[in-house]
């Protein structure tokens, strides 16, 4: 059955190809550093599940060391502005077809093989259908792009390396933060923060409780980088005992707005790297926190809105 292991191997092909391209780049001063970093990343994605945990952890530490030393990849040749303008004029709107095929195939795959059965055979792990469809969509889109643009044989890997190099270590950061989340859970960081929120404020009115719950969700999400990790702890600490049981709040309203307050936190934290830091790298912003700087005013206004709606709508008789 196609599951997470096969998906990992598919994901490994990209850093593996980039590592080989770096290793073949004879003139580059940082050739082996880059080849090592992307090669280790490929190994962890592809065969990680079969490595002992300690060895995998050591490989991660070597990657961290190489990234800290500085990857500083050398530039790789692409087309110049004139060639791109000429090619854009020649190919026109067809250039969008491969880019739009990716979401189209992903979507069609997700909807048509929802339960992972193709022709009555259970072929794909039902939990991973979307990811398998995303892999399939990427392959289809790449083939279409090759057919459409007829590049030199080395161009697909060279172009992949150009983009991977520009994103750099940020590509690995989401997985590192997932690991940190695991360590935080093991060390009990969540419980300490939640008890701190409960003990600091006097929660004697629905409004005070609501503010503590919503602001707590946002802050806690900022610390953990993930509203899903914050929700169980804040809801067990404040949402259920205080807002729902003590003040009689409507559970659907409390939970929905609590989760959405957590999403406000996600917009404001570098810990949610795949939403905030990776796009800054993908778009080659000079400021690592550029995306967060644009998002925080909206996030704070929405947090205030959530608190207002929760206070006015969740409790019988409104504000007391």
């Amino acid at each position, binding site marked *: 059955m196609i599951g997470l292991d096969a998906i990992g191997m598919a994901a490994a092909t990209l850093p593996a190809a980039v590592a080989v391209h770096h290793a073949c780049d004879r003139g580059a001063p940082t050739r082996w550093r880059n080849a090592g970093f992307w090669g280790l990343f490929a190994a962890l994605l592809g065969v*990680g599940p079969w490595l002992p945990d300690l060895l995998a952890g050591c490989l991660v*530490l070597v990657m961290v060391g190489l990234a800290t030393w500085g990857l500083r990849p050398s530039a790789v040749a692409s087309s110049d502005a004139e060639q791109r303008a000429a090619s*854009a004029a020649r190919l026109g709107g067809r*250039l969008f077809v491969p880019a739009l095929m990716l979401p189209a195939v992903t979507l069609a795959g997700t909807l048509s093989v929802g339960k992972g059965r193709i022709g009555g055979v259970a072929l794909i792990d039902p939990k991973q259908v979307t990811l398998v469809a995303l892999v399939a969509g990427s392959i289809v889109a790449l083939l279409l792009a090759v057919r459409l643009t007829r590049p030199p044989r080395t161009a697909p890997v060279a172009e992949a390396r150009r983009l991977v190099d520009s994103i750099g270590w940020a590509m690995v950061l989401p997985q590192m933060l997932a690991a940190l989340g695991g360590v935080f859970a093991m060390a009990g960081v969540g419980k300490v923060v939640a008890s701190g929120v409960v003990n600091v404020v006097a929660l004697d009115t629905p409004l005070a409780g609501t503010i503590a719950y919503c602001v707590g969700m946002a802050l806690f999400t900022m610390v953990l980088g993930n*509203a899903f990790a914050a929700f169980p702890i804040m809801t067990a600490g404040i949402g259920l005992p205080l807002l729902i049981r003590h003040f009689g709040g409507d559970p659907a309203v409390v939970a929905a707005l609590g989760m959405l307050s957590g999403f406000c936190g996600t917009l404001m934290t570098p810990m949610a790297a795949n939403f905030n*830091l990776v796009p800054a790298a993908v778009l080659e912003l000079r400021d690592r926190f550029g995306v967060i700087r644009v998002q925080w005013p909206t996030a704070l206004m*929405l947090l205030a809105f959530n608190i207002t709606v929760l206070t006015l709508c969740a409790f019988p008789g409104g504000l007391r």
Partner: protein
Amino acid sequence: MLVLSGIAIIIIGFALGVNPLLVVTVAALASAAAAGFGPVAVIAMIGRAFVDARFLAVPFLALPMIGLLERAGLREKARDIVRGLRRATTGRVLLGYLALRQITAALGLVSLGGHVQMVRPIVAPMAEGAEERDERQPLDPETRDRIRAHAAAVDNIGVFFGEDVFIAIGSILLIRAILEQDGVAVAPLDVALWAIPTAVAAFLIHGARLLLLDRRLRRRA
């Protein structure tokens, strides 16, 4: 309290601009040490969690295709299209994408978007092109970065405050599971309905900010 040392290390490390991979590693080691776990246990834990989260690397598989299209002039084409639309501005382009992203996410179609797949190759060049047209010269780096950051933000805000309106999304399933553990039953539909006010507010608030962005860009020009 010492287990919170990890959080302190994160804040200080990010503020000082140390490589985030290093900051995160040190924070993990510190928090675990404060909780009484030795380095061997922590490194094994990091290794396992890193491998378990490998699905996060899948969206990057779009990069070779996007690189090839960029090489063939995709971004230039996206710019040209917007330049052909007389009434298009940066703010309006982004407002249109915000609406599209929110509505499709509310219907459960969260995979129609993303920073790698949509924002870099299509949305950001269009938003930049709408601003570039009047000037006949490339944008200064500051303006370019601000427009790109807004393009990334619209993708996030659209999907976050759209997806919760869809009843089968992960967050609603999580809400239901957590409340059920304590004997509180909620209907997914009720939770989804209570996500609608915030979804509308997100569109109005952020939409207004996008139109303000247009005004600020005008004033600069």
